[in-house]
């Protein structure tokens, strides 16, 4: 894997162990990877792979037990100024007592930007996500997909260098999800922001990313760092039906199946316990998606 650009985000040997009630759980074993300036990287892993833990460590919301996270050359020891996070639970990450406009504007107020610039950024951001009309509505008056657009607009208005997205579309319907995926690609193209996108959806990771990092089961390590050599211009119809997309998807799928049985504390050559029969049904169901 060659890095075309200097690393914007560097994750070095991050480990996270939760302790409490006389029990310790190692959620993340040893994660090392980097994301170049302006890259769009997806992290995909089986459920319970410590994806959210990892993301919180990167966002400075959790302190790793050991290892370091570096953003634009500076060690992360708390939420960094030049980072924004979009959470999965849009319903719980928007302030229900503020209008759409108020929600997008609040981080800018906290950053003490002058009122004129705030207004401009809020308007531009809402326009960029297609919600210019809804600025005076309250979040709970909007559909789930629109609420997540508000959360994205808030991140866009904040103008971060790095945007973290934690399974942002896991709770919206398939149609909305496709629209939102395209929105992320187009915003990324327009803004030149670095995006780290966490998902459990294999198709989504291949469709969105320039690279896909496949995580193992908990305790988590990076199993594979895969470059997605699809053309830069992607659309739901052609990209998803291209042979190369199918190959990449197939490959990641296999890795995830392996990952389900391989934990970070096993050597790669160790045979995984064979439970393929039990997983046949899952594969068939997923393939029909």
């Amino acid at each position, binding site marked *: 894997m060659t890095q075309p650009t200097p690393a914007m985000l560097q994750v070095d040997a991050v480990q996270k162990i939760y302790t409490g009630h006389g029990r310790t759980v190692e959620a993340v074993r040893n994660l090392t990877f980097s994301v170049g300036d302006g890259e769009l990287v997806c992290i995909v892993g089986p459920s319970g792979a410590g994806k959210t833990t990892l993301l919180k460590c990167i966002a400075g919301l959790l302190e790793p037990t050991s290892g370091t996270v570096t953003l634009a050359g500076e060690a992360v020891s708390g939420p960094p100024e030049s980072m924004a996070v979009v959470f999965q639970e849009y319903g719980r990450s928007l*302030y229900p007592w503020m209008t759409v406009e108020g929600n997008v504007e609040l981080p800018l107020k906290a950053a003490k930007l002058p009122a004129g610039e705030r207004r401009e950024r809020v308007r531009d951001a809402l326009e960029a996500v297609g919600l210019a009309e809804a600025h005076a509505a309250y979040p709970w008056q909007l559909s789930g997909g629109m609420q997540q657009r508000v959360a994205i607009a808030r991140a866009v208005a904040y103008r971060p260098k790095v945007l973290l997205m934690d399974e942002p579309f896991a709770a919206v319907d398939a149609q909305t999800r496709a629209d939102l995926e395209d929105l992320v690609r187009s915003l990324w193209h327009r803004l030149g922001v670095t995006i780290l996108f966490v998902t459990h959806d294999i198709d989504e990771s291949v469709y969105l990313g320039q690279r896909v990092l496949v995580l193992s089961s908990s305790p988590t390590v990076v199993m594979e760092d895969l470059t997605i050599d699809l053309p830069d211009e992607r659309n739901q119809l052609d990209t998803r039906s291209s042979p190369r997309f199918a190959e990449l998807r197939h490959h990641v799928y296999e890795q995830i199946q392996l990952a389900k049985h391989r934990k970070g504390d096993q050597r790669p050559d160790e045979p995984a316990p064979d439970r393929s029969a039990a997983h046949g049904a899952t594969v068939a169901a997923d393939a029909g998606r």
Partner: protein
Amino acid sequence: MGTRIAGWGKTLLFALALPVVLIAAWWALSAGSTNYYAPPLSTIFTAFGDTWIGARMRDDVLPSVVRLLIGYLGAVLVGVALGVLLGGNRTLRRVTEPVLEFFRAIPPPALIPILFLFAGIGDTAKVIVIVFGSVWPVLLNTVEGVRAVDEVLSDTSRSYRITGLTRLRRLVLPAAGPQIVAGMRQALSIAIILMVISEMFASTNGLGFSIIQFQRSFAIPQMWSGILLLGLLGFALSLLFAVFERRTLRWYHGLRASQRGEK
């Protein structure tokens, strides 16, 4: 528009029906009553006008209401401020909890004699009694509300570096708002009770003082009219409170309605 007015009419009709029936029943049953302690309602109404409209409004009702409002607002202020402090700090909460539970368990009227010894029988002592009695529901509800701030929303605020006063004003207080307002509603009725009791103990004016005076001087219709006035005052305050609640928690009721699917 027409249906809306009809709807309001209906609401008003439902709200007024029972009071009208009760007053009519009281009027009918007490008419011609010869019981000295339960005079006819017509006599009480006459006494009401004669007693309260005029100088007494200024000399007795106004001081009562002023003490009530100062004491109540004081309780809300102290309760919310302490509640935010305790709700945000686990150690502080654990240290203060037993003491707070103890003070909360003391019936506030029991403190009146002691407070009057120290603070005299003036307005200050009465306001202190009201604050001390009605602060608890506000304080405890605020602590609960602050503790229950949604974790995702809290993480969101942290990641956008929303801290300090902005965090308090935009995240903590609104999030705890529904609980705080519920505590304030309880506190209001306690404050009214304590206003009356503190005036009955020792006072030179006020509603509670007047009622006791009337009772001691066997001015029975006047005493009844004072009780009616207290009821009306409480009712008016709870109406005002409902307006306040609807304004401050509009978002909360909207959110709840949308979660129940009644968009």
